[in-house]
């Protein structure tokens, strides 16, 4: 992925974008589809001010990738001004960038603000030690508040019809912008404090920000029906206000590496991979309990854990207590090539999350041709039909399905083939279509109010 620093006030040719869209539609056979007409008529004037905390290539975590994916499709319909809290490198995208910290002189050094790439994205495992993670809270709230102050200024000067704020760290900024310009605000929920807590106690500060933002927002985009339910039940949000926008998946052909773990596979072992942070939210402890049942029936199943986190010691102890040291291996946190090789080599990838708003890991695994078991308490379970699904707490069923996947090769092959095909339908284009109609709904509502 090429990287560059955009010029200030980088000009976007709307006309060119529409003609690109037109070309694509012609290729797809949607001659003069409604989308082009409405692009020509309305969206040309729609200017969106978007706030988010991070953006690739500085991060490869879920939030940044999601923003990038969405913008790359949505940019065809609207003029997007993307506001980031600090100056950073950005991947080529269909939008203008504004870096909030460039607007005014700041005494804080950039490194100080960087602390804000907080723990919600998986990247934290790579970037920060656990010690730092614990210190994040103080400076992060401060940084979020500073971001909001600057958002207020930006909203007063930048011309826009709509405000779109991604994830709780930008909610304050989104609300500040709305206060400044009075334009409709879309809150995009990628995760909630409840997901983080994994059934434990919720961070009251984040919860307060979320609840306030949900009340102020004109519309709320969530990444799954699962998250929608949390918003309705825990935050008492009006379901009418919520729109489900499923994330898209990276579908480009992956690089194939030399297979690894060959000796183990040659010895007849079946590899079950867990990849993700080792925290209460991710539910690894349930998978380990299932592993005991699996190994009792079929000792040739080997579990590999890739990741790290605050529950690591606890999980290792659990493995010892259950006498599973032979069958559960800890690989540390694997990234990039190592991770992708593991996705390819594994026979099955399990995501046993206790609460997962969406969940990128299964999609990544499928991209490498590996079938998945996902917890029903995840958003991704709603878009994947050709995946095995379990309740995270149903350890017996989890074990049953892990065993069934190795016991019934015809089902395994069908899962593998069909899920790869299914992945092609989980696109950012689909997500952008939903967001666009949401934008249209909000702006027409506004026009009607004025009329």
């Amino acid at each position, binding site marked *: 992925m090429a990287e560059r620093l955009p010029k200030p006030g980088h000009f976007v040719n709307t006309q060119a974008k529409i003609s690109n869209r037109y070309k694509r539609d012609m290729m797809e056979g949607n001659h003069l589809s409604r989308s082009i007409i409405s692009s020509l008529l309305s969206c040309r004037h729609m200017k969106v001010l978007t706030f988010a905390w991070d953006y690739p290539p500085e991060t490869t975590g879920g939030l940044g990738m999601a923003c990038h994916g969405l913008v790359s499709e949505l940019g065809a319909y609207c003029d997007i001004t993307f506001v980031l809290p600090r100056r950073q490198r950005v991947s080529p995208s269909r939008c203008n960038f504004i870096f909030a910290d460039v607007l005014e002189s700041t005494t804080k050094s950039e490194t100080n603000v960087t602390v804000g790439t907080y723990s919600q994205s998986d990247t934290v495992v790579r970037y920060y030690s656990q010690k730092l993670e614990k210190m994040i809270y103080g400076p992060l709230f401060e940084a979020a508040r500073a971001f909001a102050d600057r958002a207020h200024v930006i909203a007063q000067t930048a011309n826009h019809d709509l405000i779109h704020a991604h994830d709780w760290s930008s909610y304050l900024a989104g609300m500040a912008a709305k206060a400044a310009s009075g334009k409709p605000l879309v809150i995009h929920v990628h995760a909630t404090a409840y997901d983080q807590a994994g059934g434990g106690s919720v961070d009251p500060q984040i919860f307060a920000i979320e609840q306030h933002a949900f009340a102020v927002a004109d519309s709320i985009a969530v990444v799954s029906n699962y998250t929608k339910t949390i918003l309705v039940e825990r935050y008492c949000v009006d379901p009418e206000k919520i729109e489900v926008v499923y994330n898209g998946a990276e579908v480009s052909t992956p690089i194939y590496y030399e297979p690894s773990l060959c000796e183990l596979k040659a010895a007849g072992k079946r590899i079950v991979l867990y990849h993700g942070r080792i925290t209460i939210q991710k539910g690894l402890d349930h998978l380990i309990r299932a592993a005991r*049942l699996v190994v009792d029936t079929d000792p040739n199943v080997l579990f590999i854990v890739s990741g790290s986190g605050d529950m690591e010691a606890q999980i290792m102890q659990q493995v010892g207590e259950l006498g599973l040291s032979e069958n559960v291996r800890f690989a540390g946190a694997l990234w990039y090539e190592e991770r992708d090789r593991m996705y390819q080599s594994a026979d099955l990838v399990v995501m046993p999350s206790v609460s997962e708003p969406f969940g990128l890991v299964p999609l990544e695994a499928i991209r490498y041709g590996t079938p998945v078991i996902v917890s029903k308490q995840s958003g991704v379970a709603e878009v994947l*039909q050709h995946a095995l*699904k379990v309740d995270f707490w149903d350890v017996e069923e989890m074990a049953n399905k892990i*065993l*069934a996947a190795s*016991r*019934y090769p*015809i*089902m395994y092959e069908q899962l593998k083939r069909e899920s790869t095909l299914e992945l092609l339908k989980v696109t950012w284009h689909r997500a952008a279509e939903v967001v666009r109609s949401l934008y249209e709904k909000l702006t027409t509502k506004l026009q009607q109010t004025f009329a």
Partner: protein
Amino acid sequence: MISICPYLHVHQPYRVKRYRVFDIGREKEYFNDESATDLNNRFIVEKVAEKSYRPMNALLEELLAAHPEFCFSLSFSGTVLDQFEAWAPDVLESFQRIIATGRVEVLADTYHHSLAFFYSVPEFERQVTKHEERVQELFGYTPRVFRNTELSYRNDLAKWCEDHGYLGIMAEGWDPLLGWRSPNFVYRPKGTDTIKVLLKNYKLSDDLAFRFGNQGWESWPLSTETYSEWVHSHHGNAQTINLFMDYETFGEHQWSDTGIFDFWRSFPGTVMSDGETTFKTATQTVESYEAMGEFDSPDILTWADTDRDLTAWVGNDIQNDAIATIYRMEEDVMALGKPDLTEIWRKLQTSDHFYYMCTKYWADGDVHAYFSPYESPYDAYIAYMNAVSDLQLRIQEAKRAQATTTPAHAVAATAPRTKQEGWLLALWRRLHTWLKQRWEKVQASINRT
């Protein structure tokens, strides 16, 4: 003058419970789910009895009493009859009363609602015989018209039915096979001489079975007057209107609050009010009309989906694997001849098991999802295959046990127990050797020429 031939299909399968891999070899019951979910067979039968069987049977009795011309046909799977007997005997009795009026015909079927004809004709024949015996036992009636599972049909099935004395057979009135012709006539299956085929008018049937309660449908709400007009519009260009549907359409697929019972209550009276329309059972229909032409279905035709083929049951790899696995066991099961194992094996042949594994159109959350008690086709497959694996173990075990006891049995069977038996045995042996010699001679002469 046209006649209406309504036929309602009554069926419930034995659904496999959530049978897990580690239950194999330990748990012998596959169908006894006791949760409050749709996997609990008893729970379903009781629920559907309340919603559909009891109110509908009461209504049918009422209509039979009110309209002397009103008649219709029913078909039952053996599995639903067994479940009625066990959990809703009053429902079974009400069916017996209805059939005792003599104006309700019972059709022939496979006992286990299976697709056996397409996988093993001998097994299919055994199931048809078992079904016939059961219908005779419960209703004192020998069916004369055949309907196969899911209305599946092929030319050779029609031929089989003709060879086995049936007067008629039922099939889907599918346009691609009919061409410009109408399903509202009686046809002759290709390759047969006497049997006739009755074709479902899927437009009018599905108006009730699928569309009746759909508020987005242009004809909603459907009145008996409108529907009768649609039937009457065929006057002069039809012999029979074949309305084939699931019995559970009334009260279960279409809930009582859609008005389906009120619709059906007034339907016979309204439709017959023109004096030109009447009702006939399947046998009456077949006997009343001459075949208008030939119906040719070289490939399997069913009443499902927009494809009208078997792909809802055997359209993907897991379905094909599951059904192939169960029929591969036939030889072993038959050789063993253990009634309990045979019965379990047959319960696992019921077509519904494979339907639950269907992934076609699944993403749209359509009719397949509605009819499945499992959360996913893969869940259905895993539970099914686990149960089959256990059955395979039991069969192997029984075979081993039999192998160790067989010599003793064999001796006991061949050793004469009485003088008479000994004499007969000797005679038989002499006859056998003589026949064998003759046969060898004949073969030798054939070889020479």
